[in-house]
């Protein structure tokens, strides 16, 4: 896989920049406190299985406390604060994130397993940018198209996944606070650390106590939080299965809900695509972040007339992917986030083989400790294969073919999901024709996996409802007026 002449030497990013405490409490009412029930769990580095820290598990009384703290802050200082002043807190937070960016990136790579190159160059810049963007909305909500006097909803419960821990936190907290809400956020069980450092940043920014509360825990904690009587709104990013369950829990109540769920995006390559850039787009689409991306281009739909050539180039390109230590600056593919996720990826890949698809990975040395899966493609896949329908959430690409633009649209849309899609062609009218017909919340044409705080993101159908980012992202955090 690597060059014999020029193998690049190890280029490790130093861990010394981050100070991980041996244990963390819950962040409630502006302070770190011990959990009422005293339960803890460990978070590990998935690249080495080393324990990073002990983290608290919030129990029912802790959730009560957190919601109460958020309510108190909402009814008191935050709810009555002008947008102008709220904005300044958010700008402070954005600036501190900029300042501590490298430290947060290293911590994210340690806790999540993603390459430092990605946490440094993609995650952290977007985190800061989100806070900066929404800070600017806080004092101009009356111009946002939601009425002359828009009001916050109240206390928001926010549950986020492990794939982009700090970035998902930013997508949730920034708009919520900008609109005047207070929040109780639960980071994912396997990636709590950057959220806990974010809590420190809130303290550094002087954010009033109770505006942001971080309750760590697993599935049970999340369930308690979204089902709590004292919250006014739930924002969830995660699997469609859990999203559905939350929607049922909230049925018949006035609690608002926004969901950002799974996907099985089609990345469509036409015979006239700019070939080398399209191959980059395919690779970035499924192997970026180890494929742990809801909007990953996990189905390659390649025009049949050029399928062989595209696949040859794809395999050749995949052979230059460097898998290994996430803290090495030259690593392209990091660790799978958990044993459970690795097991699921393996299971679905085995199903792919059993259903007759042909599996290929470049020669890849996997470290012996940690959770690893080589970048993999399956060819000979059709819509009738499970690996074309079910979200694998790993570095596994299913390759299908199509003959005509209409067929590409039919196959791309033939799924209960509808989060994203990619189109590669050199023809302008075809780009727009395809974008028009793809039933997906985000369409990337001649590019992929691009994000920006001003650009609304979210799904059609079972990929969820509501949008994050842009003016549209305010809607989920403002009361419906009449």
């Amino acid at each position: 896989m690597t060059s014999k002449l020029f193998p690049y030497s190890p280029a490790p990013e130093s861990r010394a920049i981050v100070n991980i405490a041996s244990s963390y409490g819950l962040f409630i009412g502006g302070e770190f406190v011990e959990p009422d029930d005293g339960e803890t769990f460990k978070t590990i580095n998935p690249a080495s299985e080393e324990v990073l820290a002990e983290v608290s598990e919030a129990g029912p009384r802790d959730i009560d406390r957190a919601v109460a703290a958020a309510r108190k802050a909402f009814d008191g200082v935050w709810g009555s604060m002008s947008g102008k002043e709220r904005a300044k807190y958010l700008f402070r937070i954005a600036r501190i994130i900029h300042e501590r960016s490298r430290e947060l990136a290293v911590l994210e790579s340690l806790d999540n397993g993603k390459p430092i190159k990605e946490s440094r160059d993609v995650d952290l810049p977007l985190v800061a940018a989100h806070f900066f963007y929404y800070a600017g909305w806080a004092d101009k909500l009356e111009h946002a198209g939601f009425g002359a006097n828009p009001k916050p909803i109240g206390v928001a419960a926010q549950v986020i996944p492990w794939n982009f821990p700090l970035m998902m936190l930013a997508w949730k907290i920034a708009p919520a606070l900008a609109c005047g809400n207070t929040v109780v956020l639960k980071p994912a069980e396997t990636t709590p650390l950057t959220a806990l450092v974010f809590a420190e940043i809130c303290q550094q920014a002087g954010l009033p106590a109770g505006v942001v509360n971080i309750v760590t825990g697993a599935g049970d904690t999340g369930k308690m939080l979204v089902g709590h009587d004292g919250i006014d709104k739930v924002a969830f990013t995660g699997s469609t299965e859990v999203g559905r369950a939350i929607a049922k829990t909230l049925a018949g109540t006035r609690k608002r809900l926004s969901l950002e769920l799974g996907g099985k995006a089609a990345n469509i390559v036409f015979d006239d695509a700019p070939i080398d850039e399209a191959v980059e787009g395919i690779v970035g689409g499924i192997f970026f972040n180890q494929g742990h991306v809801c909007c990953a281009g996990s189905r390659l739909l390649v025009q049949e007339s050029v399928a062989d050539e595209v696949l040859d180039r794809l395999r050749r390109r995949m052979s230059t992917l460097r898998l290994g230590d996430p803290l090495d600056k030259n690593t392209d593919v990091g660790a799978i986030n958990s044993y459970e996720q690795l097991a699921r990826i393996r299971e679905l890949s085995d199903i792919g083989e059993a259903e007759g698809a042909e599996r290929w990975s470049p020669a890849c040395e996997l470290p012996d400790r940690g959770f690893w899966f080589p970048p993999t493609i399956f060819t000979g896949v059709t819509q009738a294969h499970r690996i074309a329908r079910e979200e694998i959430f790993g570095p596994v690409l299913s390759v299908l073919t199509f003959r005509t633009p209409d067929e590409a649209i039919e196959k791309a849309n033939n799924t209960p999901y509808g989060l994203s899609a990619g189109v590669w062609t050199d023809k302008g009218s075809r780009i727009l024709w395809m974008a028009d017909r793809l039933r997906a919340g985000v369409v990337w044409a001649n590019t992929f996996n691009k994000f920006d705080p001003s650009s609304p993101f979210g799904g059609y159908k079972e990929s969820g409802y509501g949008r994050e980012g842009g003016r549209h992202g305010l809607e989920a955090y403002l009361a419906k007026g009449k």
Partner: protein
Amino acid sequence: MRAKKTEDDRIGVRKTYKLYIGGAFPRSESGRSYPVTNHDGDFAANAALASRKDARDAVVAARAAFGGWSRATAYNRGQVLYRVAEVMEGRRDQFVTEVRDAEGGKFDVAAAAVDAAIDRVVWYAGWADKVAQVVGAANPVAGPFFDFSVPEPTGVVAIAAPATSSLLGLVSVLLPVIATGNTTVVLASELRPLAAITLTEVLATSDLPGGVVNMLTGRVAEVAPWLASHADVNGLDLTGIPLALWRDLEIAAADNLKRVRRPDDVEPDWSRDPGTDRLTTFLETKTVWHPLGV
């Protein structure tokens, strides 16, 4: 010799109220009907009692119509809806009688409601080609990309029409949903369905493609669950349903993540400015990225 008949003795030709599905007026496939009474308790007419199969057929019709209606130009949709207002205006007196018979009260109150309904249709006709400019955006992303967001209709939307306001309320929940390109299956007010059927006669003669609006009359509690659980229905407007049914319907809707509009605690005052909320409820936002380069 036959006695000369006066005008007052003329026997009227009574209207048969049927369902409106796919642009046609079928009876319920179940053959059932139910008596509808006026506000003063007198028998007014028999209305079709829709079954789950009628609901199923209505969804099929709505889905079949979605492609054409959502792909029509906004200008075209606006023109069609304006024509609806024209035809409604022509039938104004008929509507005033029906609304007054169903809802009671003075004629001029009924007349005001009908006029407001017609004006509201005109208002929504004008929205068709403007929503995109109000909620769409060119997003200033931090990179060499053209990035824009456009609204798109969600798909097939099932609507429970308001129980009390038989025309103005109905128009207020229906028009914003179809103006943007959605197609609908409407559950008319159970007790006051007649103006709804007359409205469908207007729709049928107004260039509105069949299947864009499908109207079911009957027992809301019987039919609503079939729509709420239907996997080919994308949106659910619970405005007119009894509050006791709300939770179970929303739970059923969650199976395919339908976009749900929850009922209000009390039926709104339909004479107030509607705002844009109902226009945007059943819209998706699609964001498109493309590099800017030579």
